[in-house]
Structures are given as C-alpha cells and as structure tokens.
C-alpha cells in the first residue's frame, strides 16, 4: 500500500490527464483492512505571513471589499479582522484556485441559468480579472482612484450595483464573480481557523457555534439551555497556547 498522500495526488493527476512518472499500477488489497500506524491524512494549516496570490493593489481591493460584506461593527470583528483576505489568498494558490476538481474541458457555452457555472476561468483567474476590473470601473466613475479609496457608503453602493448586475466587469461574468466572492467570504469567516480565516474563532463566537466539538451527548436533551462550552478549533483554542 502506497502512502495515502501519494494516492490522492495520483488520482488528481490522473483526473487532470497528466502522465505519472513511476506510478505503481493498481493497489491490490487482500487479507485485511489496510492501515499503518500513524497514517492519517490530516489537513495542513495555513502558514502566516503576507499575501502569496494577491499583489498589493489586489490586496487593498479585496480587503476593502470583504470589509463591507462583513463589516466590523457594534457586534464585533468583521471579515478583515477574521483574516478572510488571507483565507481567500491561500485558497487561490491551492487546489481550489486552480479549479483542480472541476471539469474544465471545452467547448465553452453560456447556456441556461439552470446549467450552472460555465466559465473557462479558474477561480484564481476570476479574482485576478474581477479585482482589476473593479478598480478600473471605480476609477472611471471618478469618485476615487480605486475601490479601497471610496468612502464606505460609496463602496456599499458600488457593491450593490455589482450584486444586481448594474455594473459589468470586464473579462469575467459579474454574477460568477460576485457569487464566488460572497461564498468565499462566508467560508473564510466560518471555516476552521487552520485555513487562515475565522481568526480567534470570531465567526463562530458571533453566532454561538461551538466549532469542532466531538461529543454533544450531554447536551442533546437540555432543551432551551445555552450551550455551556466555548468554541474549539481542530488545533484547539488560542487560550490553550497562551500563558
């Protein structure tokens, strides 16, 4: 039995139609359930540091955009404080950004709405085109040089028009981008902190979700009572590693 990481990579490479140097043939499994001590396909936490996908102009734009989608307000931190821009950045340099699991062969047609996503662009290409286009459009409208330099009310107005399709991005379908942006922002706000967003579990604390809890048996029939435990992530809680 080859290591699991290898076999998953092999599957994806096969999916992409890539030749595989030195790949073994089929796994023949007989006699027992295959398992080796310590073998587990644990997720890899996002490393800190600056942006790896977004250039400085794109970073300024995405930070300003997600700050309006989930603002910091009297209820607490918003998307920027939660690390959503870094979350999206790391997603875009990975498997998601490449659309590695998606069917990306042509021919390309737009079709009916009920036929779903049909763009040729990977998510990384969608963001690249859209963020540039947003700043270009804002610049042309003349209130500020870039989206990030607009005031909050003008930013909201622009995003509302984007959502309604009243402004058209160039190089990418507006709705495709907006839906992806909103979805990725929610993901960054509420996914496990190991992926770079939901910093200090602020997304979970906002709503009362207890995170990666494993055993809820004591609480199933505690009708109407608040859940007594604080949230926890896959790597524990910040309090565990702070003195």
């Amino acid at each position, binding site marked *: 039995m080859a290591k699991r990481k290898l*076999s998953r990579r092999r599957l994806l490479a096969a999916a992409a139609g890539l030749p595989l140097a030195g790949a073994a043939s089929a796994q023949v499994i007989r006699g027992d359930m295959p398992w080796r001590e310590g073998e587990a396909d*644990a997720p890899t936490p996002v490393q800190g540091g600056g942006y790896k996908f977004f250039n400085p102009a794109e970073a300024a734009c995405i930070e300003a955009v997600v700050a309006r989608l989930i603002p910091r307000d009297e209820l607490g931190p918003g998307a920027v404080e939660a690390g959503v821009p870094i979350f999206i950045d790391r997603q875009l340099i990975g498997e998601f950004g490449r659309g590695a699991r998606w069917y990306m062969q042509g021919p390309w047609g737009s079709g009916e709405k009920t036929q779903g996503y049909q763009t040729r662009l990977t998510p990384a290409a969608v963001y690249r085109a859209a963020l540039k286009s947003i700043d270009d459009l804002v610049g042309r409208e003349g209130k500020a040089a870039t989206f990030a330099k607009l005031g909050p009310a003008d930013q909201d107005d622009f995003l509302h028009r984007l959502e309604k399709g009243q402004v058209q991005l160039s190089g990418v379908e507006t709705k495709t981008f907006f839906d992806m942006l909103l979805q990725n922002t929610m993901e960054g706000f509420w996914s496990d902190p190991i992926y770079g967003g939901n910093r200090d579990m602020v997304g979970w604390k906002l709503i009362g979700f207890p995170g990666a809890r494993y055993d809820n048996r004591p609480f199933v029939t505690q009708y109407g009572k608040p859940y007594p435990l604080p949230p926890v992530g896959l790597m524990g809680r910040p309090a565990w590693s702070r003195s």
Partner: protein
Amino acid sequence: MATRLPPVDVLIVGFGWTGAILGQELTDAGLNVLALERGAWRDTPIDFPPTFDQDELRYYWRHELFEPLAHETLTVRNNVSETALPMRRLGSFLPGINVGGAGVHWNGQTWRFLPSDFLARSHNQSRYGAKAIPPDMTIQDWGVTYDELEPHYDKFEYLCGISGKAGNLQGAIQPGGNPFEGPRRREYPNPPLAMSYPPTLFAEAARSLGHSPFPQPAANMSRPYVNPLGVQLGPCTYCGFCEKFGCGNYSKASAQTTILPVLMKKPNFTLRTESEVIKLNYDAAAKRVVSATYVDASGQEFEQPAEMVILAAYILHNVRLLLLSGIGQPYDPQSGQGVIGKNYAYQITSSVNVFFDDKVLNPFIGAGAHGMVVDKYNGDNFDHSGLGFIGGGYIGNIQTGARPIETHPTPEGTPKWGSAWKKAVAANYLKSMSIATHGAVMSHRGNYLDLDPTYRDVYGRPLLRMTFDFTDNEHRMSDYITDRAAEIARAMNPREIKVNYRKGSWDVVPYQTTHNTGGAIMGKDPKSSAINRYLQSWDAHNLFVMGSTAFPQNPGYNPTGTVAALAYFSADAIKNQYLKSPGFLVHA
C-alpha cells in the same frame, strides 16, 4: 493492448454499499470474487478520524469525499430543445468517490418504500382511474413486491443497526412509529436516537394538528451495537458532521463500518483500487459479458475475464457503462422505444424556515438522520382525488447539524451581506430550525439519460447526458406538501416563518439531493425494462445491475434502504437459482 488477466468467478464493478453487499454474499457462496474500484482505499482512521473530521470547508465545500469532475462529469439540460452543457462543479447532487462510495457521506436516513410504491401504475390506476396518469408519465410497476423484499430490508437494517421505532409489526400498528409503513417482521435493532429540542417542537406541533410523528429511522447508532457479522459500531455523539461527511466515530453504518472488516479478511476476496472499468466486453450472440476492460492509475489497460459481472457503480456510471458497452437498446424519447437511459428520475425538495425569539435550539447538535417525521402525505397515504397529482413525500425536521457556512438562515427580506445581514445572522442562528419536505418524482417520457454528442472524459469517451425537468405533477405535489409543512411550522408559534417552495425548472446549481434514479430500470419484460426483478440484465444473463438504477420512478423516501434490499434480493437469486443453472432467471 490490454494485458489479459486470469479469470475470476465474479467481477464487481464499483465498491460502495452494493459492491460490498454482493462481495460478502457471493464469497459466502464460495465464489472467487474480485472488486474493481476506480477510487482509492478509504477508511475512518486515515481519512476522517475525530481529530479532524469536523471540517466543514474541506469535506463539504472542497468536496473531499465527492467525485472529482475533472475526471468525468455529465452534461445537463432541462429538455431536448436545449444544448446540454457539462456540470463543471458539483451542486444539485454529490456522487461519491473511493471505497465506500456515497455510502460514506450519506445521512443514514434508512427507509422502506410503501407497498403501494412498488405498484405505482397499477395501484394508482385502480384507485383513481386510468386518467389519473397522464400519457407522458411513464411510471411502471417494479415487478417485485414489498412482501418479497421485506426479509431483505430486515437484513440490511440489522446489518446497519438502524435506530428507530416500528410502526407496523406484522400488521399491528404500533404507537410512536410510522402508521403508514408496510408490515415488518420485528422491531428495529436499536431504539430511536435521543431527540434534541427542534424535533421535539416539530413533533408537538404535528401532534396538535392530528398527525402521527415518529423518529426518522437512522443508520446513526443510538447505542453501541454489534451486527450479525460481528462488527462493532459505537454510539453516535451528535457532533453534527454526518451529512456530507464521514463519521469519525464508527457510529454511522457504511460499508467500512459494517461489512469490510469481515469481507476484506476472506481468502476468496480481492479488491483492486485505482482501477477504472471503461468497458464491459459483451458477446451479443451468447448473451453474456465475457470480461471488463479497466485502466489502472498508471494508464495501463487490462482485460479481466469473469464468469459473472456485478455492475455496482453509482447509478449514473452504471447507465453510462451500459451505453458505452452496447448492452441493451438505448432509449429514444421520440418513439418511447429502447430501455437504457429510460425513466431517469430525481426527487423534489422544499423547506420552511422557522424563527423563534424565545427558544435556544442549539441547532449544531445533530446527526444525519436525527429528527422527527410525518409520513401522512407520502406515496398514496392520503386521498389524491381532485388534487391533480399522484405521489407525495415526507415532512420532517431532521437536525443534521447547522454547520455555519451552509446554515445561517435569515428572515425574509434580509440583505445578503453587510451590517444588517450580520445582525440577522447573529440574532437567528441559535433560534431557528427548518422543516424539510422530501418528495417523489414520477418518471416522464422526456426525462432520460444518453451519451453526449460533444463532451468527453479524460479517456476521450462520451460523457453521460442528462435531460431532466420537474413536471406539473411534481410541482403540484411539492407545493401541496410544502403548504402542509408550513401549517406545522405555524402551529409551533414562532416569531415568523419563511416558506421556500421549489419553483421553476430543475437547476444544477443548488444542492438538493443525491437521489438520482432509473436509467436501467427493473420490470416485467424486456420491452419496458433493462433488467428483470432479480436485477439481471435482459441482454446478458451473467450481468446483474445494482443500485437505484433499477427504480422505475422515484418514491418520496431516501433510497439506500431499498437499494440494499434489492441487492440482497438479487444476491439471494444468484446464490439459490443462478449458480445452480446459469441462464436467464425470467424468460421473456
């Protein structure tokens, strides 16, 4: 050129629930069995242990347990006047990948169909008259009855350790169970799961309206269980990562947690993973499949001869392999002739959000089949006279766990982002729940599967093409039962509700349900069906086709219980009839 391998007695194509069931049964009969699975080995401690199983992003949104479409997808359209385009990203349904298939990420909602479901045409005709079935509604009787399947339902329920409450024990209606179900020989192997607050509120409201709510039968364990094969399952911990996730706790029945620990040890069983069958080699004169051609991970081709072939892939792959292999006549929607691809069906779902001011519901506490259900409006459990549709669905509150990226409901009129949205999410997350309806889809002349003329997979083979839309029958039915769900919601005295009808054409984008059915349906004769009542191909006597592929139309229940019962029924026929005298078990 393909390397020819030594023959085996039985070749199983695809290694999920039905592959494991047939593997177990046919090795018991002393046969030498080989299973080919295109995905990789997958098991609890490696792929989804409790130390990292509760990861909404990885497993649901990044599709780790689901089929990678880069390798193969299908094209979709609502009707023949449209050009089908590929499903480039997963949405409406989530087929599985790797060992265990979709049976790893299922909820565990384990139903039996109603006795009348198996007689969809004759029962409705005799009760409502021939005119109740429109000319283009191509529903058929199954060719097998509830009574014939009952022992096989029972066998699967005991294999899995289903938690539930019987509603009909040998004809005697039982308080607390489903009064509409067919008679069962004995009680469920395990008592129902403990109920959290939302299903309890739903059940109280339903009772106040005169309904008989009962616990959703669950493949989530309400207590430790040892199944008849000696495999142990642990008690469910209600962690809420079940639907669309693997279970880290051995608490949800799957091939891995019920069969494989026994089957994998048998000397007459072999599994080859990362081996994708691309064609069944068919001898039309002899009416048998002689071998399967498969490709391994390095791209090498092999030919595997076998005395018998069990097609046990997901429904969409079963149908596509039959079409690519030239076994059976492809269905033509114009003439209504042909059988492969015929009667593709789906299910129709809707929901009602319920918002309270005064009740803390802790909606993240859950399990895939943890909830209460009303079955009065399913199948023919109610009088359809004058309603303009046949069929139905169940109404229930199933608390599968409110993982926040997927579930953060807001009241009608809330914006989708910004401070007002944030306020609404924060105010409602702990105090809202949802009532779901889960409805049948009848088969229709224009809903079918065939090969796409344009799009190809990584091997250059045509993709499957799905032509499907909901018909008037489905919309009328779904609207009717959604209104009944809303009545129950109002009886809960919430602050407000939001009714989400299923409007318009079928849309591939939003997740609805992974209950695709049909395309190689079972039936009484080779003109109207692809396989006989034993799931044996009418065109190749040594080929048996498993799965919901066989459903002539799709009743209003989750399919796995019936998929498994049919698999056991078929295995029984192979062991007790076919092996004694290989040939067609039903003569056309």
